[in-house]
């Protein structure tokens, strides 16, 4: 992939001028339910995203099941910054900065493993997996003045877990995670508390010529693209029954949910739906942890997708990899990692109910992988389409005409999408949720608010 040729043009404006112009333009455009195209490939905007978004908000690190034993570790990034996600010998989860306090070398060089200590390969400083500096070669002769307590590995100042999902925030001050997730917890409880989920194996990782905001916007609730964008997969018979319309359902778009958003297909039926999980798997769920309203939504759930600001998304669906096999409930959790303006790296984890049979988990994996992954029959086409947005966004012409993208669906007089006041959960629920852009607007409004937030600097 030739990245360099697609970097955005730099006009004669300075970076702060450019950022101001674009964020001002964005404020006006959002009034019209539009978004400046340029933000999808602009170096100055990208640098500000790294500090203002990824440097300020809670971001996803990993799932507890990825590091089950003391000493287990995995390398992770916050924005582009290198961290070690580890469980120390006391069982505590830590997010350590992967850089030696001596001269900055990476102390952890494998993607995953198990260790009690990280020994720096440069001069041999050694840290416990708690981050504590416990060994300095020739300390007595050369570093007798050094206070080891002041030279632990740096760690993310805020690390917290919600139902097994571990998040970190590198800003000095952070609101509590649960407050940050806000109304989203009501939904996350259905996927991660009702069900004890576990990650299967290692994530898919791949690089894509698209800005991280493009798939995030899509997973905030672009249900409009499915019939066209995924026609090839639907034609070969592997579309989920709710998405293809074989199974009658109502799609609710959940917006105004503290910056996060969900799309929830509800199937009116006496039968338990639970995203396509069969009875013997549903039996393993924690049936008493939800409120009756949450439980009812879970019971009627077909395909469900959503995103947690800034860059964590998921899709939960009763899917198939073969029209002749039974659908299974598969859960793909994905993080759109910023890797430059108009460039990202996708991380995709597949999760299954921990108490299901080994065979069932294998099927969950296979179906997840063949639907949403680098080889996913659905995902490949999304990505094929997104490739090229970055070039248009970084163009001189986009700047000249102040090109925008449109989020006006469902704002006309005859709009089919309507607010359902009876919806039990947090946020504003739009019935006919496939015909409104409110979810995606929420993403861009939250993005804009976070980007202009001077207090956070």
């Amino acid at each position: 992939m030739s990245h360099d040729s697609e970097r955005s043009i730099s006009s004669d404006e300075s970076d702060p001028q450019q950022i101001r112009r674009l964020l001002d333009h964005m404020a006006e455009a959002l009034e019209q339910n539009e978004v400046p195209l340029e933000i999808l490939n602009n170096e100055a905007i990208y640098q500000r995203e790294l500090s203002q978004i990824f440097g300020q908000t809670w971001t996803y690190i990993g799932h507890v099941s990825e590091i089950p034993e003391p000493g287990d570790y995995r390398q992770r990034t916050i924005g582009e910054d290198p961290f070690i996600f580890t469980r120390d010998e006391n069982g505590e989860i830590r997010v350590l900065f992967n850089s030696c306090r001596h001269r900055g070398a990476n102390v952890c060089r494998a993607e995953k493993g198990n260790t009690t200590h990280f020994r720096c390969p440069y001069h041999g400083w050694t840290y416990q997996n708690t981050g504590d500096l416990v060994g300095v070669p020739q300390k007595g002769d050369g570093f007798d003045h050094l206070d080891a307590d002041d030279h632990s590995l740096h760690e993310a100042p805020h690390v917290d877990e919600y139902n097994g999902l571990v998040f970190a925030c590198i800003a000095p001050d952070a609101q509590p995670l649960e407050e940050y997730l806000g109304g989203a917890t009501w939904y996350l409880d259905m996927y991660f508390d009702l069900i004890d989920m576990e990650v299967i194996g290692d994530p898919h990782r791949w690089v894509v010529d698209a800005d991280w905001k493009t798939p995030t916007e899509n997973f905030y609730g672009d249900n409009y693209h499915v019939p066209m964008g995924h026609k090839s997969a639907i034609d070969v018979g592997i579309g989920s029954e709710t998405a293809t319309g074989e199974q009658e359902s109502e799609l609710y778009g959940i917006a105004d949910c503290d910056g996060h958003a969900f799309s929830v297909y509800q199937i009116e039926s006496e039968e338990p739906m639970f995203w396509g999980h069969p009875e013997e798997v549903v039996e393993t769920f924690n049936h008493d942890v939800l409120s009756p309203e949450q439980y009812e939504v879970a019971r009627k759930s077909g395909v469900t997708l959503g995103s947690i600001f800034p860059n964590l998304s998921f899709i939960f669906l009763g899917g198939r990899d073969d029209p002749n096999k039974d659908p299974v409930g598969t859960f793909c959790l994905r993080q759109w990692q910023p890797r430059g303006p108009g460039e990202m790296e996708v991380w995709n984890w597949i999760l299954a109910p921990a108490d299901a049979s080994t065979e069932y988990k294998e099927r969950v994996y296979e179906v997840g992988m063949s639907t949403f992954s680098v080889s996913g029959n659905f995902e490949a086409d999304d990505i094929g389409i997104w490739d090229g947005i970055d070039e248009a966004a970084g163009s001189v012409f986009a700047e000249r005409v102040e090109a925008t993208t449109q989020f006006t669906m469902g704002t006309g007089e005859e709009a089919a999408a309507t607010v359902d006041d009876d919806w039990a959960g947090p946020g504003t629920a739009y019935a006919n949720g496939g015909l409104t852009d409110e979810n995606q607007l929420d993403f861009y409004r939250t993005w804009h608010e976070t980007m202009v937030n001077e207090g956070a600097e």
Partner: protein
Amino acid sequence: MQEDQIPNRVTLQHECEQFLYHAAALLDDRRLNEWHELVTDDISYRVPIRTTRERASDTEFSDTSYHMKEDWDTLKVRTERMASDFAWSEDPPSRTRRQVSNVRITDSSDDEIELTNNLVIVQSRKSETEPDLLSMKRHETLRRDEDGYAPEWINGPGLKLAEREVLLDHTVIPTSSLSIIL
């Protein structure tokens, strides 16, 4: 090895290479259906996820997570989809050139041949001048089959692909999607 087996060995090596080249050409030429006809009903096709590990670790390859883990039916779904006019990842199609090399037979019986080989795929899209490169080793099992591929000079059954394990050199896949067969 008996001396009188040497010509057989050379012939078998040549035959296997011809099969691999033929199968690679079908994929490069986008003749996906014809390629699919050369896999056995019980094919096992796997591309395990690789991670960067310490030298001391037993393996870099996952035994639970894969980029592809296919049987005959799911390969059928994939090849049909990739050939669709609505498969936006492959329409316009990418241009691929597969370089198969280092073919080594590791075991053989009358029925089956196990071998390893290296594969480099040069993949170009749109007007890009720097192609994506995919580099890998493959372990495979070829099986004698009446409907298999046989060069003209072979009397008797040709070969089909019964098993393929693709060991990628990548931990992060450098292409925006894997919408081709490896």
